[in-house]
């Protein structure tokens, strides 16, 4: 074994208590760092699950356009055309939706493409009337996208496929209108169309504004309510492999289709900023905790160096170079750090396991925390790096000790 390592080992075992205290400091810092970073991912995932029950990753639709204010003439003989800029009241439909949907599904990151028709309606049952929105979907695609099945409290969402005049309503509507599965409900659309649907199921998203207004019908039924034909599509919803890439994919889809492709980040900016703030706070706090752990190593090594001034002077007299002395003390720091980091990983696994088994209810169920390998790796690397520096500075101080000064005392 290298003599520097040998000496470092002897010092570590000679000061077992100090070493243990420093290692425990790193252990706690490390475990909290990993745990909190896993937590941030869990919280993001939790809020995303709720968000993606109601919106898709990307929504492609026809945006209102403002008319151009001035068209310059190409030659001097013709005149300028000047128009007051205003929103052009064209139709809000997507032209040739089948082709657009096909073009979108060719993008390699796209997983689900679901054309949709939103129809503003009144739900009528006897005298009571509620205004709301009825969403025309292809049931199996919609289920893949929003996982509606998981929020059904009564009935079966998939039976919408086999019943053209079926409707799945929010729990708020069902309660207000006293409806159960099998009952009929009358819808009046903004275009004046009146149709009766059979209630096939009731869903509950736990967002009361949605539960009180939203219903799902077949695409064809929604087109009828809008008094339009089979090619009438207002939105095409798109899900992609990684929701974090929605902004980029959205821009790409916008170029491919020529329609506005809005990512979920644009649609719900408050959630994005909320996640960002949480990320900043937790990263900052966990890093500071880890630094405190590393400071323990710095502190104890500094103390060791002061206690071992004589030893350092003897070693230097016997021909140890400055870098040998640095190696002796950095080895101690890294050993303490490695023990602390290893213990921290174990403790983090324990903490995550405990929280994983905590039931929080709602549509989240068990706490959605998981063992995030990247965060564990990040913690280990980060922990070892700061341990190294926590040891390096006292070690450099030790390397600068002038033996003559010590021997003269």
């Amino acid at each position: 074994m290298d003599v520097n390592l040998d000496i470092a080992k002897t010092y570590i075992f000679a000061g077992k208590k100090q070493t243990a205290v420093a290692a425990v400091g790193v252990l706690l810092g490390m475990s909290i760092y990993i745990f909190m970073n896993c937590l941030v991912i869990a919280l993001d995932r939790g809020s995303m699950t709720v968000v993606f029950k109601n919106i898709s990753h990307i929504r492609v639709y026809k945006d209102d356009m403002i008319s151009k204010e001035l068209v310059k003439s190409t030659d001097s003989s013709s005149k300028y055309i000047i128009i007051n800029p205003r929103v052009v009241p064209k139709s809000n439909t997507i032209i040739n939706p089948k082709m657009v949907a096909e073009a979108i599904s060719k993008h390699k990151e796209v997983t689900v493409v679901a054309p949709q028709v939103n129809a503003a309606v009144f739900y009528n049952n006897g005298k009571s009337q509620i205004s709301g929105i009825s969403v025309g979907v292809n049931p199996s695609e919609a289920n893949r996208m929003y996982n509606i099945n998981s929020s059904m409290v009564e009935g079966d969402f998939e039976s919408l496929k086999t019943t053209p005049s079926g409707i799945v309503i929010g729990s708020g509507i069902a309660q207000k209108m006293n409806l159960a599965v099998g009952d009929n409900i009358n819808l009046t659309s903004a275009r004046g169309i009146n149709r009766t649907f059979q209630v096939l199921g009731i869903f509950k998203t736990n967002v009361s504004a949605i539960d009180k207004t939203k219903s799902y019908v077949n695409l064809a039924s929604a087109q009828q309510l809008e008094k339009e034909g089979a090619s009438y599509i207002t939105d095409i919803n798109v899900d992609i492999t990684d929701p974090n890439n929605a902004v980029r994919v959205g821009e790409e889809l916008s170029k491919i289709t020529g329609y506005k492709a809005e990512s979920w980040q644009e649609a719900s900016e408050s959630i994005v900023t909320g996640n960002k703030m949480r990320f900043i706070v937790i990263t900052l706090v966990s890093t500071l905790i880890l630094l405190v752990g590393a400071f323990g190593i710095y502190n104890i090594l500094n103390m060791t160096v002061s206690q071992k001034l004589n030893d350092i002077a003897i070693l230097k007299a016997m021909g140890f170079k400055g870098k040998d002395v640095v190696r002796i003390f950095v080895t101690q720091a890294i050993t303490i750090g490695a023990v602390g980091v290893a213990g921290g990983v174990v403790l983090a696994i324990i903490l995550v396991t405990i929280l994983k088994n905590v039931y929080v209810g709602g549509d989240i169920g068990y706490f959605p925390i998981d063992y995030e390998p990247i965060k564990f790796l990040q913690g280990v690397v980060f922990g070892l790096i700061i341990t190294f520096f926590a040891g390096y500075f006292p070690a450099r101080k030790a390397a600068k000790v002038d033996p003559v000064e010590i021997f003269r005392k």
Partner: protein
Amino acid sequence: MEERVKDNIILKTENINKFFYEPVEFQVLKDISFEVKRNELLTLVGKSGSGKSTLLYILSTMDRDYKGQLWIDNDLVTKKSIDELAVLRNEKIGFVFQFHYLLMEFSCLKNVMIPALRLGKLSEKEIEERAFSKLEMLGLADQALKPASKLSGGQQQRVAIARALINDPLIIMGDEPTGNLDSKNTDIIFDIFRELTHNQGQTIIAVTHDDDFARKSDRIVEMKDGRIVG
């Protein structure tokens, strides 16, 4: 003839001057020029404050802050870097200090082995055998595996001598090597020193206050107010 004389000189200084600047400027060493021959047991004597310890630390290459020139083994060491000097000390110089200065957390054997492990010329097993034979020579074979802190002062001093010898250095330097030992232990250590210089081919330079010890040495260099006076 000229070559032989030169060969026979192990250490030489030329016009060494040293100043202390704290608390006030003060010249500790004034134009020190002298030579040490191979196989000599030389003692540096003088009152405290005469500069003899300061001179020893310059000769030992640990103190680089001086004016003048120092040769060890026909090699000018004055301009060498700290790391080069560390290698040189490791190979050519052994130290024995007044307060024995062993590494207390290590066994006696390990203390003796460390300079040789640093040098790295022999295997660990060979070094261990050598270290043990040095301890045996100094009558400490039965103490080899004890921690250094468990030994008496005289025993510690002998371990320090064994450590100084492990790399077969050209020169052994001692700062009051018998400073806090009783006369019996002093005699033992003096006998060891004489054996080393007369029969093992080593050179010893020792700073001492002990007149008896100095009188028995081959040569006395007396210092006064930063100058060699005899």
